[in-house]
């Protein structure tokens, strides 16, 4: 199998030599793949804008030893234009791409769920259906769930005692009951916990109706949860516009 075809979302591009770029793509069937796009930085490149981050593309790739080579690319959905036209969408979207990249650290390990989740989140973000920051937080919580770190915002994350509970312990994986509560747990507003639960399950009615301070609190907790599990900083989170 030297030539193969797959669809994927472009996560990151990086300059290579005079006019080439290395692109990192989260594909549907082959997981995250890194490939060389030759001559893509020239204005007359036949790839043009197709291989920019946020693009959902149909690719033909030539398998190489360490890096593959892009031989053909067709746009499936140009999410980039809808995202880049709004600065808040752009910063939230970039944080989503970086999260997706971190969660699929091993190359060529199939991650269909992560791909579908990311493509769906980018579609929502580009369409401007919800506040960008909420889309980002919802995506992060769900992507972590798919990766095996599903938080719990109803039952106690330690003993499973039915909720609702008041305290949130990031290290324990969500809300904790008074008995399990480790020292230093956060005690956010009950509406914040309700918002987090809504974001995790995709209950947009509740999420859209939430208030500013609750959203900020939920974002802070989501970011803390993400950094805790990834064990390294997600750089673009610092620049996300609230």
């Amino acid at each position, binding site marked *: 199998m030297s030539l193969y075809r797959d669809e994927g979302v472009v996560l990151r591009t990086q300059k290579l030599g005079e006019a080439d770029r290395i692109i990192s793509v989260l594909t549907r069937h082959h997981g995250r793949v890194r490939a060389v796009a030759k001559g893509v930085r020239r204005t007359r490149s036949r*790839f043009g804008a197709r291989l920019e981050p946020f693009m959902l593309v149909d690719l033909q790739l030539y398998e190489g030893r360490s890096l593959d080579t892009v031989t053909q690319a067709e*746009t499936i959905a140009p999410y980039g234009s809808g995202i880049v036209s709004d600065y808040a969408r752009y910063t939230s979207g970039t944080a989503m791409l970086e999260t997706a990249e971190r969660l699929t650290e091993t190359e060529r390990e199939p991650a269909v769920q992560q791909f579908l989740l990311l493509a769906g989140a980018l579609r929502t973000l580009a369409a401007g259906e919800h506040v960008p920051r909420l889309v980002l937080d919802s995506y992060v919580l769900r992507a972590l769930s798919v990766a095996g770190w599903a938080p719990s915002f109803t039952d106690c994350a330690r003993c499973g005692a039915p909720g609702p509970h008041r305290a949130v312990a990031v290290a324990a994986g969500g809300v904790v009951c008074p008995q399990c509560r480790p020292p230093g747990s956060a005690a956010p507003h009950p509406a914040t916990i309700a918002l987090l639960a809504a974001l995790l399950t995709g209950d947009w009615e509740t999420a859209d109706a939430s208030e500013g301070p609750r959203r900020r609190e939920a974002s802070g907790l989501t970011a803390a949860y993400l950094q805790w599990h990834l064990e390294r900083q997600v750089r673009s989170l610092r620049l996300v516009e609230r």
Partner: protein
Amino acid sequence: MYEGVVQDLIDELGRLPGVGPKSAQRIAFHLLQSDPVDVRRLVAALVEVTEKVRFCELCGNVSAEDQCRICRDPRRDAAVLCVVEEPKDVVAIEKTREFRGRYHVLGGAISPIEGIGPDDLRVKELVTRLASGEVTEIILATDPNLEGEATATYLARLLKPMGLKVTRLASGLPVGGDLEYADELTLGRAFEGRRLLDV
């Protein structure tokens, strides 16, 4: 491996962009065989560039003095300011001979994934420059890629409330190309920005 100094030269040349070990060796031997006067001239140019070149205090372009040639030129239109990412872009625009205003070099584009935000660019300097009220039009000439577009969106949002005319360079089809090879986005932009033909 060659003896000491020759190998040192090859190693140093090999660190330059686009120069591999084989090309480094070729350049090194070319230098060894050329007239010592030519080599000294090259050395002098290298020393001069590292010692003399700095960034223009107004626009951020590379310059041999405190202010660059363009900022010092009184014939340039002070009412129009063209915002670019890199000093290389100034040269590219200058080559067109179409633009008679002044420049502002940002020093990059907003790229959160690389950890580069608006505070890491020369945005504050741009806003300070506009305070005098001399500038009436801003041309956003950042790269037509994702980071460049995002930077333009950010700047437009920041500068519009200041009552300036903010324009963005047009995107569309490259001159001398084939329509069928244009990607959907570029072709779409070309349609958006089509113009009336006055015949």
